[in-house]
C-alpha cells in the first residue's frame, strides 16, 4: 500500500506512515476489507458461482481499486459469462494500474491469439445487441432467431441464454426455456435470474387445471402481469370411453345396414349379369355348333371331291409321258422329217423324189404303228397330227404294205 500523502510504500499493518506520519489506519482497513471480499469472490468463482463472484469482486474493487488480483479475476469471471469485451476492459485497466508482473497482459494475449474465436465473440456481442433491440420493439421471432445465432457463436453467453429463455416463456415454450436455463446454471450455478425463471416455469406447470396464457393478452399497459399465475394451464381432455363405444356401435350399425340393404341389390345385380352372360355364352355355343356342323358337311364334300380327284390323278398318272414314249419318239422323227423335207418347201414348189420317198417311208411306218396300247388323249392327238400332215404329202400307191415285222417294231 502506498501512503496517500507522500507515496511511500508501506509494508505490513501500520497506523501511521513512517515517512510523513499521515494516518493510514482507514486505508489499511479498506485494503483488508477489499482483500477479504476478493477471497470470498475467489471461493465463489472456484465453485462456479460466477454471479456471486462478480458481485464480491466488484465490491472488493470499490474498497480498493488497486486490488489487481480482484480486477484480473473479475475480468476472468466476465469472460466465462460470455462478456468478452467487459473482460478485456478490466484487464486493460489492470494493466494500466500495474504494468509489470501482471497476469492481465497474458490473459489479453490469450484472448487475442485466436483471431477467429475473437471475431466470433465480437460478432456474438453485436448480434445480442440487435436481438435485444428487436425484442424491445416487439419483433420477438426475429429476436429469437438472432439469439440462436449468438449462442452458436458463443456458447457461454449467459445474457443471450436468459433473454432467449424469457422469450420462450412468453411464448409458453416452457420446455425449451427450461433447457436453456439449465445450461445457464451449469455455467453459473448462482445465477439468480435463471433460478427465478425456472421457479416460475415450475409454478406455471404445476398449477392444477391450468390453461396456457393467451399471448395476445401480453401488452405494455400497466395492469395485471400476464404471468400472474392465475391463468389456467391448458390440459388435454382425457379420452371419453362413452364416445368411443358410441363410435364402434355406429360402425356396427352401418355394417348391418349395408349388409341388409346394399348386399341383396348387389347380389341381384350380379345374378342378372350372370344370367345375361350365360345366355350370351349359350348363343355363342349354338352358333359355334352350327358352324361346326356346316364345316363338317363341307369337309365330307371336300373329302368326296378329293377322292374323285385322287382317282382322276391315278387316271392321269396313266397318261404319264413315260407310258407313251414310242409315240413321242415317232413324233420326234416326224418333226425331223418335216424340218428336212416339208418345211423347206416353198409355196408353189414341187417335192423332190427323194423327199417323197422319205415321206412315203414314214407314212408306211405310221400306218404300221399300233396305237392300241396308248389310251392317252395326248398320244392320240400327236398321232393324228402326224397322220394329217404326212398324209398331205405322201403318195399312198408308193407306200409299202405293212408286214408282221414292221408292226412289231411299231409296238416296241
Amino acid at each position, binding site marked *: 500500500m*502506498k501512503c*496517500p500523502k507522500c*507515496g511511500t510504500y508501506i509494508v505490513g499493518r501500520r497506523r501511521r506512515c513512517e515517512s510523513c506520519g499521515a494516518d493510514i489506519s*482507514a*486505508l489499511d482497513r*479498506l485494503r483488508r476489507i477489499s482483500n477479504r471480499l476478493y477471497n470470498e469472490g475467489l471461493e465463489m468463482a472456484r465453485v462456479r458461482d460466477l454471479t456471486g463472484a462478480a458481485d464480491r469482486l466488484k465490491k472488493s*474493487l*470499490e*474498497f*480498493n*481499486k*488497486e486490488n489487481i488480483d480482484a480486477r484480473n479475476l473479475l475480468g476472468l469471471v466476465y469472460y466465462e459469462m460470455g*462478456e*468478452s*469485451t*467487459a473482460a*478485456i*476492459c478490466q484487464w*486493460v*485497466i489492470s494493466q494500466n494500474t500495474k504494468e509489470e508482473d501482471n497476469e492481465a497482459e497474458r490473459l489479453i494475449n490469450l484472448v487475442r491469439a485466436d483471431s477467429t474465436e475473437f471475431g466470433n465473440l*465480437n460478432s456474438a*456481442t*453485436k448480434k*445480442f*445487441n440487435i436481438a*435485444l433491440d428487436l*425484442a*424491445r420493439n416487439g419483433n420477438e421471432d426475429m429476436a429469437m432467431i438472432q439469439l440462436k445465432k449468438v449462442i452458436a457463436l458463443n456458447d457461454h453467453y449467459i*445474457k443471450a441464454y*436468459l*433473454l432467449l429463455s*424469457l422469450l420462450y*416463456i*412468453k411464448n409458453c415454450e416452457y420446455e425449451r426455456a427450461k433447457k436453456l436455463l439449465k445450461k445457464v446454471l451449469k455455467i453459473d450455478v448462482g445465477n439468480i*435470474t435463471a433460478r*427465478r*425463471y425456472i421457479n*416460475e416455469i415450475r409454478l406455471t406447470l404445476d398449477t392444477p387445471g391450468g390453461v396456457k396464457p393467451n399471448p395476445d393478452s*401480453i401488452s*405494455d399497459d400497466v395492469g395485471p*402481469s*400476464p*404471468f*400472474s*399465475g392465475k391463468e389456467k394451464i391448458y390440459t388435454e381432455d382425457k379420452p371419453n370411453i362413452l364416445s368411443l363405444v358410441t363410435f364402434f356401435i355406429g360402425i356396427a350399425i352401418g355394417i348391418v345396414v349395408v349388409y341388409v340393404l346394399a348386399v341383396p341389390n348387389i347380389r341381384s345385380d350380379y345374378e342378372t349379369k350372370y344370367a345375361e352372360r350365360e345366355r350370351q355364352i349359350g348363343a355363342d355355343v349354338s352358333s359355334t355348333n352350327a358352324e361346326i356342323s356346316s364345316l363338317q358337311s363341307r369337309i365330307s364334300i371336300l373329302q368326296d371331291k378329293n377322292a374323285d380327284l385322287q382317282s382322276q390323278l391315278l387316271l392321269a398318272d396313266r397318261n404319264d409321258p413315260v407310258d407313251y414314249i414310242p409315240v413321242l419318239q415317232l413324233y420326234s422323227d416326224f418333226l425331223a422329217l418335216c424340218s428336212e423335207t416339208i418345211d423347206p418347201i416353198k409355196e408353189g414348189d414341187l417335192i423332190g423324189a427323194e423327199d417323197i420317198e422319205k415321206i412315203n417311208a414314214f407314212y408306211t411306218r405310221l400306218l404300221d404303228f399300233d396305237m392300241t396300247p396308248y389310251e392317252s388323249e395326248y398320244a392320240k392327238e400327236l398321232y393324228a397330227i402326224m397322220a394329217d400332215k404326212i398324209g398331205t404329202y405322201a403318195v399312198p400307191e408308193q407306200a409299202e404294205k405293212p408286214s408282221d415285222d414292221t408292226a412289231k417294231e411299231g409296238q416296241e
Partner: protein
Amino acid sequence: MINYDEELQRFTPSVEIDDAEDAIFRSDTTDLSDVIEKLNNPKGATRQ
C-alpha cells in the same frame, strides 16, 4: 411472478470491442479510499 417487460428492461446491451476504449475511459474507478481522501482534503488533493 415474472413481468416480461420489466425483465426485458433489466437486460442491458453488452459493450462491443469497438466501444471498449470509450468504456475504459468512462469507467468509474473511484473507490472508498478516494472518497475518504476527498473528505479529508476537500480542496481536491488526489492519491498518488
